[in-house]
C-alpha cells in the first residue's frame, strides 16, 4: 500500500490550476435535451431494414427433465424464419463468470438454451425468429415442450440436494474471519442472537432488456446495439463464445433505461441475438417484455442471516459471528459468488469489531438466478448489522445512538485496514469521520425536537416512530479506467471513455471535470461512452465506479492535454508555459491580459497535419491525450439514514412520513446529481422494505409476474425527503478525492425503516424480515395490552388512525 501523500496528485510545481467553474456546481445535464424531446435511442428504438424479431420460449416448470421440444408447428407459420433449441446452438459454451475469485463454480453456469434439465420458470428453452414481433409471439406459443417434473427446492436454509451427479446445490461456502471469536463469546457479558431475512427483490429498471444485432458483411463486423454497463467485457466474452475476433465485433450503448446492477450482465439472449445475426444474415431484434423481465432478469437480495454478537456490559462489540444462507436461484451467473462475498466481507460497516467469523452458504434453488442489485450485499448486511446494534442497545439498556457511538471507528484510525477482503481486494476504509457525521446529522435533523414531537404525537394516540441506521458504502472499483480527450480544430472537446451511462449523468460529470481543467464551457465537451469501437478498453458502469475511476482518468487526461496545449502555445507566443493559463477556450497570460493570446482551436489546428504543413514532430500531432487511472482499492463513502413512520394500527400499513439521508461523498462534482441518486436510491430501498418481493408458490411458480403483483413505489408512497451531502472525508486514493454516490441512498433503507417501525410499535426487535408484512404488524399491535377502556377514547384513537 502506498503512502497516502504519494497518492494525491498535486499540481506540478509552477503550474496553477484553473479556477473551478464547474466542479462542485449543480449544472444542468448534457444528457437531457434528447431525452425530454423523446429523441433518445433506447434498444427498442433501434431498427434496421429486414430485421427479424426473436422471441424466447421459456420453461413453465420450475424443475424438470426436458424430454422433448417440437418446433414444427412454429416453423410452419408463414413469416417464421427459424426456431432453435439446444441442438442448434450446442457448440456455444455456457455463460461464464465476469468476476469471481471462487473456483469450482463452472459446472453451475447457465447454458444459453436449456438442454436435459430446466431449473427455473423462465429459463430459455427455444428461440423463434419471425418477421414481426406479434408473429414471433404467435410462433412461440406453438412450440410444444414436454417436461418431466422433478421436486423443487425453494428454500436456501434447507439442506442442499443434488444438482447433477457429483454436484450439490451448494456450489461453495465462503468463509472469512479474524481474531479470537470463540474466546470472545466465552468471555462475553452477553450474547445477542438474531435470525433475520431479506426478501427476494431486484433492480427492475423501467426499460426491459433488449438487443439488436446486425452483421455488416461489407466490413465483416458484427454489431450489437442495446449494450450497457460492461460493454467491453461482454464483447470480449461473446466474441470468444462465437469464435469471432474482438476487433470484428462491436457493442454500442445508446440510451439505457436504468441498470441498478441487473442490466448489462451477459445473458443468454444477448449471445443468441448475435449468433442469429451471423447465421441468418439479417438483423435480429429482441425486446424483453415485462412479464419475461420479472422471471428472467437477475433477481437479488434474498438472504437469511443467523447472526450473533458477543458484547461487554457497556454494549461494546467483542465479536460477531454470522451464518448466511444466500439464495442464488437456479444457476451461477456472471457475478459468480460476488454478492455473498460482499455480504461476508463488508458487513461490519463503520464499527470496530475485534473478532469476526462469517460462513456464507451459497446455495441454488429453483428460482430465477440472482446477481448484483444496487448496494449488493450491503442493503442486506446493513439491515442485519443495524438490527444487531439495536438489539445490543435493548439488551444493555443503552440508547441506540449511544451504543453506536461506543462502537464506531474513530477518525484517527483511518486508513483502517480490516483483516478481510471483499471482491478480492483488501478492505481498507480509506477515510471517514463517522462520529462527526453522526453529530452533524443529529443537529441537522433537529434530533431533540424530533424526539419530543414524536413523543407528543404518541401521547395523542398516534403510532409513530423514528429509526436511524449508519452505513459504509463502497465505490470506485478498479482496476482501472482510461479516457482519451481531444480538442478539434473548432475548439470543441471530445472525451472518449470506456465507462458506461445507465442514466446517472456521467457525461455531465466527466464534462465538468474536463472543462475545468481545460478552461472551456462544459457544454462544448462531447462525451462518448459504451462504444467498443471508439475505446478499446473499458470497465463499464457499476459499483459506483464511474465518477471515481473515469473522473480520475478524465482529470489526468485533461491535465496532460492542458500541459501539451500550454507548451505548444508557449512556443507559438514566444513565452514560457508557466506564465500561461487556459481561460474560456483561450490560452492567456497569467498576469497581463494585454499580452497576445491564442485559442485552443488554433493550437489544435497547429497540431493537425493536414492544416499545418510546418508540423514535423510526431509529438505535436493531434491535440489529444490519454489518461489512465489505476486503483488497487475501493473507497468507502458513508452515511446515515433516518426514517419517521406512522402506522395505522388497524391495518398494520406503514407510512414513511419523512426521510433524511446524510452522506459523505468525499468530493461532490455535481451536488444536484448526487442528491438525485440518493433520492432515487431511497425509493428503491423503500420498495425492498415495504412493497417489492418475488414470491413463489410451493411448486416454484412465480407469483410476482406483472406490475400488479410486484409493487413499485409511486410518488404517493415517497416521504418528504431531505439530503445532506458532506465532503469531510475525501478519498486519499484518487487525485480529486472522489467517492461514488450511486448506492448510498439504497443501502440503509431497510434498516432505518425497520428501526422506525420497532420504535412506533414500542416493540424492539419486532422487524426481523423484509419486506415488512402489514398483517404481522397489525397482529402484533392487536396483541398489545389495550391502552384505554372506554368507548369514546377508543373511537378517538380510531380517528387518529384515519
Amino acid at each position, binding site marked *: 500500500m502506498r503512502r497516502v501523500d504519494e497518492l494525491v496528485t498535486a499540481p506540478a510545481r509552477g503550474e496553477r490550476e484553473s479556477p473551478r467553474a464547474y466542479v462542485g456546481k449543480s449544472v444542468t445535464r448534457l444528457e437531457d435535451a434528447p431525452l425530454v424531446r423523446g429523441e433518445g435511442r433506447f434498444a427498442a428504438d433501434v431498427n434496421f431494414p429486414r430485421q427479424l424479431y426473436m422471441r424466447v420460449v421459456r420453461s413453465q416448470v420450475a424443475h424438470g427433465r426436458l424430454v422433448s421440444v417440437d418446433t414444427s408447428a412454429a416453423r410452419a407459420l408463414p413469416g417464421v424464419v427459424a426456431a432453435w433449441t439446444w441442438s442448434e446452438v450446442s457448440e456455444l459454451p455456457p455463460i461464464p463468470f465476469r468476476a469471481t475469485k471462487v473456483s469450482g463454480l463452472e459446472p453451475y453456469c447457465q447454458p444459453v438454451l436449456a438442454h436435459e434439465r430446466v431449473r427455473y420458470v423462465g429459463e430459455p428453452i427455444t428461440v423463434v425468429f419471425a418477421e414481426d414481433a406479434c408473429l414471433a409471439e404467435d410462433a412461440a406459443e406453438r412450440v410444444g415442450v414436454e417436461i418431466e417434473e422433478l421436486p423443487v427446492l425453494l428454500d436456501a436454509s434447507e439442506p442442499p440436494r443434488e444438482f447433477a451427479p457429483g454436484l450439490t446445490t451448494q456450489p461453495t461456502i465462503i468463509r472469512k474471519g479474524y481474531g479470537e471469536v470463540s474466546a470472545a463469546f466465552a468471555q462475553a457479558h452477553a450474547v445477542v442472537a438474531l435470525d433475520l431475512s431479506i426478501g427476494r427483490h431486484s433492480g427492475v429498471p423501467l426499460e426491459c432488456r433488449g438487443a439488436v444485432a446486425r452483421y455488416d458483411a461489407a466490413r465483416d463486423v458484427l454489431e450489437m446495439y442495446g449494450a450497457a454497463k460492461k460493454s467491453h467485457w461482454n464483447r470480449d466474452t461473446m466474441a470468444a463464445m462465437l469464435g469471432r475476433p474482438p476487433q470484428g465485433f462491436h457493442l454500442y450503448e445508446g440510451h439505457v433505461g436504468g441498470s441498478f446492477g441487473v442490466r448489462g450482465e451477459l445473458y443468454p439472449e444477448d449471445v443468441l441475438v448475435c449468433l442469429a445475426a451471423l447465421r441468418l444474415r439479417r438483423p435480429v431484434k429482441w425486446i424483453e417484455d415485462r412479464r419475461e423481465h420479472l422471471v428472467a432478469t437477475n433477481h437479488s437480495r434474498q438472504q437469511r442471516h443467523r447472526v450473533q454478537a458477543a458484547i461487554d456490559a457497556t454494549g461494546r462489540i467483542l465479536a460477531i459471528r454470522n451464518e448466511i444462507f444466500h439464495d442464488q436461484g437456479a444457476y451461477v451467473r456472471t457475478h459468480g459468488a460476488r454478492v455473498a462475498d460482499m455480504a461476508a466481507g463488508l458487513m461490519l460497516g463503520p464499527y470496530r469489531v475485534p473478532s469476526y467469523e462469517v460462513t456464507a452458504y451459497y446455495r441454488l434453488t429453483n428460482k430465477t438466478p440472482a446477481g448484483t442489485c444496487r448496494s449488493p450485499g450491503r442493503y442486506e448486511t446493513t439491515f442485519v448489522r443495524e438490527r444487531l446494534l439495536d438489539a445490543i442497545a435493548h439488551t444493555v439498556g443503552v440508547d441506540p445512538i449511544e451504543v453506536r457511538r461506543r462502537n464506531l471507528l474513530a477518525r484517527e484510525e483511518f486508513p483502517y485496514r480490516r483483516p478481510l477482503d471483499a471482491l478480492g481486494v483488501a478492505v481498507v476504509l480509506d477515510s471517514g469521520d463517522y462520529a462527526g457525521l453522526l453529530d452533524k446529522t443529529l443537529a441537522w435533523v433537529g434530533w431533540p425536537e424530533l424526539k419530543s414531537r414524536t413523543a407528543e404525537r404518541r401521547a395523542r394516540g398516534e403510532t409513530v416512530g423514528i429509526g436511524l441506521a449508519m452505513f459504509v458504502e463502497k465505490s470506485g472499483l478498479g482496476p482501472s479506467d482510461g479516457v482519451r480527450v481531444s480538442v478539434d480544430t473548432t475548439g470543441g472537446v471530445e472525451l472518449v471513455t470506456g465507462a458506461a451511462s445507465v442514466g446517472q449523468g456521467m457525461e455531465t460529470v466527466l464534462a465538468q471535470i474536463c472543462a475545468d481543467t481545460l478552461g472551456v464551457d462544459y457544454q462544448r465537451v462531447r462525451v462518448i461512452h459504451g462504444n467498443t469501437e471508439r475505446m478499446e478498453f473499458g470497465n463499464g458502469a457499476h459499483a459506483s465506479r464511474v465518477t471515481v475511476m473515469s473522473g480520475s482518468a478524465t482529470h489526468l487526461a485533461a491535465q496532460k492535454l492542458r500541459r501539451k496545449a500550454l507548451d505548444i502555445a508557449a512556443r507559438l507566443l514566444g513565452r514560457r508555459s508557466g506564465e500561461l493559463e487556459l481561460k474560456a477556450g483561450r490560452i492567456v497570460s497569467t498576469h497581463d491580459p494585454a499580452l497576445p493570446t491564442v485559442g485552443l482551436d488554433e493550437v489544435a489546428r497547429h497540431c493537425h497535419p493536414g492544416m499545418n504543413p510546418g508540423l514535423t514532430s510526431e509529438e505535436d500531432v493531434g491535440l489529444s491525450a490519454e489518461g489512465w487511472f489505476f486503483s488497487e482499492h475501493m473507497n468507502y463513502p458513508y452515511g446515515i439514514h433516518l426514517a419517521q413512520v406512522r402506522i395505522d394500527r388497524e*391495518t398494520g400499513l406503514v407510512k414513511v412520513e419523512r426521510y433524511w439521508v446524510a452522506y459523505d461523498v468525499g468530493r461532490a462534482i455535481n451536488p444536484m446529481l448526487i442528491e438525485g441518486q440518493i433520492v432515487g436510491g431511497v425509493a428503491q430501498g423503500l420498495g425492498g422494505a415495504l412493497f417489492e418481493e418475488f414470491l413463489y408458490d410451493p411448486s416454484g411458480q412465480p407469483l410476482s409476474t406483472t406490475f400488479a403483483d410486484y*409493487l413499485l413505489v409511486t410518488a404517493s408512497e415517497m416521504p418528504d425527503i431531505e439530503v445532506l451531502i458532506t465532503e469531510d472525508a475525501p478519498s486519499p486514493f484518487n487525485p480529486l478525492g472522489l467517492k461514488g454516490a450511486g448506492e448510498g441512498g439504497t443501502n440503509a433503507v431497510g434498516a432505518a425503516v425497520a428501526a422506525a417501525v420497532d420504535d412506533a410499535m414500542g416493540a424492539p426487535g419486532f422487524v426481523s424480515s423484509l419486506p415488512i408484512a402489514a398483517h404481522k404488524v397489525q397482529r402484533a399491535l392487536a396483541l398489545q395490552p389495550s391502552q384505554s377502556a372506554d368507548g369514546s377514547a377508543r373511537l378517538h384513537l*380510531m380517528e387518529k388512525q384515519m
Partner: protein
Amino acid sequence: MKPAPFHYFAPSSIAAATAQLSELAGEDARVLAGGQTLIPAMALRLARPSHLIDINGIQELNNLEVRGTALHIGACVRHAAFHRPVVAGPLGALLLDVVRHVAHLPIRYRGTFCGSLANADPAAEWCLVAATLDARLTACSARGEREIAATEFFRGYLTTALSSDELLIGAQLPCLSARERFGFVEFSRRAGDFAMAMSLVVLQSEAGRLTRVRIGVGGVEVVPRRIAPAEQCLEGQLVRSENLERAAEAAAMAIEPAESEEELRVYKRSLVRAAVLRALIKALDGQLRSH
C-alpha cells in the same frame, strides 16, 4: 406482450352489437368498452377472444342522466365523468368521493363504470357501490332487455349473471335523499391499488337514531355485498360508539374471506372491522361528539 389475433367489429348501435353477440354465441367473443382491464388480459394472453366487439362507437351508451329517482349510467360512461358531481345531493358526492380510489387518472379517462361492473372484480369500487345501493343493471340481447338486481348480478369472482349473448347497456343507481349520509373507506397497499378491504356505508340519522342503514363490504369475499347482520345492529338504534363497534364486529364475523391461510383470514376480518367502523364514523361526521 402482444394479443393473439382476433376479428374486430365496431357496431354503431345497440341492435347491431347484440345481433353480433347472438351470432357469435358459442364462440369466444368479448365486448370492448374502456379496455383497461380486457386489453392487459389480452396482452398477457390470459384472455384470447376470437372476436372483439368494440362498443365505443355506440352513441346511445353515453347517456348519463337522472330519470325519475334514479341515475342512469350508460355502458360507455367513463370513470372520469364522476370527477364532478353528476347529480345534486349525496349520490353525486358519494360517486365523487369514491372515484378518486378507482385506479389512476389515465385509466379513468378510458375505463367505464359499467365495464367495471361487468368485470365483477370484488375489489373494484363501483361493484361495491352497485351492491350497497342495490343498483339495477340493464342487460340487452337479441332476445330483448331485462333488468337485474345487483344481488343477482354478482355471481362469483369475475362472474356475473350476464349470458354470453347479453350486453350490459346501463346501470341505475337510486338517487339518495338529502338526509342520507355516506362514508367510504378503502385500504390498499398503495394509492390506486385494488382494495384489500373496503366499506361503503349509507344511512340516515334522525333525532339521534339511525335508519335506512346500508353497510356494504368489498375486497374480501368473492363478491361485494351488503352485510345484513351489521345493518341490523344499527337499524333504529341510537348513535353511540358501542353500537357502531358492534356493527363493525358483526360485519367482521359475517364475512367469509377468500383467503385460505388462517393468518390472512383473521387479518381480513380485522380490516373489515376497521373499514366498517371508519366508514360509519365518516358518515356520521361529527355526530358522535354529542353523545
